[in-house]
């Protein structure tokens, strides 16, 4: 039953990176802001967490710190766009660059090993070792509960009056203004939340892999985009509200994407072929559902 291992890994990694995918999807679909910042806020979150951990800060505080700094990065992107009328992409790219230097400064090195850190993953791993052998039931269950609770929380927020205003501010700033909503402030808050989530993804990843590295954000954006696309293509949309669809699709897509990557890795592909293989797999999924139509599939943002 070894061929099932990639599913196990895909679930674990997918649920960890789902937070980054959710961050991208919320910004992209609900705030209508193609936010590149996550490529910087994810490693930044890991860096803050690792740096605080190294200075003996208790872990809940370190996690909160990571979220806060990630949120700051997100709000900086929004502010650059809003205050200096900077292009959305350029604002994101600038903040990614800032995050890189900041991560290096905070960690005082490019890489901090977290092997001595006894995180929740090590406790869960111990259970898995004793009860389920090769498969990480406890780890996956924990991550699944985390994702479900988090998504439910976000869903409630987005469906509340405040969340509605946030979405209106993103999709139609003019209209929002006419309703007396401060669209600029809403965008800042929105991106702060999404990038805080991306930073949390970085923290989980650092805990799982046992290190924080400034290079770990590289490719996260592409990964998140691919995961988001897969999820949106495959999830039946009919009975879900827009915000629920975006959230569930992000989580589902993240898991599926990581499962695909895990099978590619397991095949022991040459490094030259690995990226192509993942790209082809993503294309395959998208092609499968090529006939889909709906709001999200007709050239994206309206």
């Amino acid at each position, binding site marked *: 039953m070894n061929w099932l291992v990639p599913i196990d890994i895909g679930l674990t990694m997918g649920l960890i990176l789902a937070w980054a995918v959710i961050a991208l999807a919320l910004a992209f679909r609900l705030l209508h802001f193609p936010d590149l910042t996550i490529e910087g806020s994810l490693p930044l979150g890991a860096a803050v967490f690792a740096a605080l951990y190294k200075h003996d800060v208790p872990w809940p505080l370190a996690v909160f710190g990571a979220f806060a700094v990630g949120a700051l990065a997100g709000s900086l992107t929004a502010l650059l766009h809003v205050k200096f009328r900077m292009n959305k992409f350029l604002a994101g790219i600038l903040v990614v660059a800032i995050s890189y230097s900041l991560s290096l400064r905070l960690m005082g090195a490019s890489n901090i090993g977290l092997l001595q850190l006894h995180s929740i993953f090590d406790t869960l791993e111990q259970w898995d070792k004793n009860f389920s052998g090769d498969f990480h039931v406890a780890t996956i269950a924990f991550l699944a509960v985390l994702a479900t609770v988090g998504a439910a929380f976000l869903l409630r927020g987005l469906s509340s009056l405040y969340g509605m205003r946030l979405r209106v501010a993103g999709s139609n700033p003019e209209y929002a203004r006419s309703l007396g909503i401060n669209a600029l402030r809403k965008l800042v808050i929105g991106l702060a939340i999404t990038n805080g989530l991306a930073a949390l993804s970085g923290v989980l990843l650092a805990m799982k892999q046992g290190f924080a590295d400034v290079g770990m954000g590289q*490719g996260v954006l592409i990964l998140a985009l691919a995961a988001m696309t897969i999820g949106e293509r495959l999830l039946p949309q009919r009975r879900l509200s827009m915000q629920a669809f975006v959230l569930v699709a992000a989580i589902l897509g993240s898991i599926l994407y990581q499962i695909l990557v895990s099978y590619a890795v397991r095949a022991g592909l040459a490094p030259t072929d690995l990226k192509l293989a993942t790209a082809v797999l993503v294309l395959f999924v998208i092609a499968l559902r090529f006939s889909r139509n709906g709001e999200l599939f007709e050239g994206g943002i309206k």
Partner: protein
Amino acid sequence: MKPKRIVVTLLIIAAIVAAVWLAGRTKTAKPVETKTVAIATLMSHPALDAVQENLKKELAKEGYIEGQNIRYLVRNASGQVQLAANIASELASQNADAVVAITTPMAQAVAKAARCPVVFAAVTDPVGAGLVKSLDHGEENITGTSDAWPYEDQLKLIRQISPNAKRLGVLYNPGEAASQYGIKEIKKFAPALGFEIIEGAVSSTTDVYPVAHNLAGRTDALFLSSDNTVIAGVASAIKVAVERKMPLYVGDSGTVEKGGLAAVSVGYAELGTKTGVIVGRVLKGEKNIPTVVAHGDEIYLNKKAAELMGVTLPEEVLKRATKVYEEIKE
């Protein structure tokens, strides 16, 4: 809204998890005689490939012949750091007898996930990376080889070839663990040898040319740290050195062959062999093996580069050299 939806999603995930778990309980029997060695590396790169190749050669010498009584599982992240955890988990499930992890992030991820002995290779600073507590006492199941460059010897060689050089420009990528360690070491030994260090930070290979150019105007000689980014873009640094007629010192034999002036080098082939010896000991069941540091003491020179950079190589250095390249290999 719709808590039902959430419950359904949770149930589906739970069902998948349960299926995976049930499937996992029926373990497949493993053939007894064949040893399995998993190799995980972050990227392909001549020096890192040399490690892999010579590791296999050494194990073959010890009687582990590929295809007969040893099986290699090779995984390469093709430079994507966030794949490290994925690869590490995948290899952990393979019930290998040992996992060889090449490069720092890969070694950390493998050490975190592995359920079998881990042998790291080409990790510059294993203590700083948190892999081992000290170099002399190996952890129970983690050991390996370090490729720390002999910066003191390298600076001494620079002093010998360029006796009048005062300011030494060092190219490095602050985003790499190995370079962070390198620049610290260089700064530690430089004052005693009368060098003032001018740093030139590079974040991608395209930065190498402008940064080298900028440094060249302010320094008497150029040097670099054990840095994948700078080494990948070393051709442009060589170009600058030739244009400005100033020496470019490097740190590995491969780069000297490509036109670097001189290096005291760690042999990556030798590093592979040493890693192979450790893997052999691990396969025999040995534990707590100390980390082996490859102390490079071989001098490599390039005569053609010396001519182009306007440097005269002292007779005594030429005599001590392990190998002198006459031409630049393009």
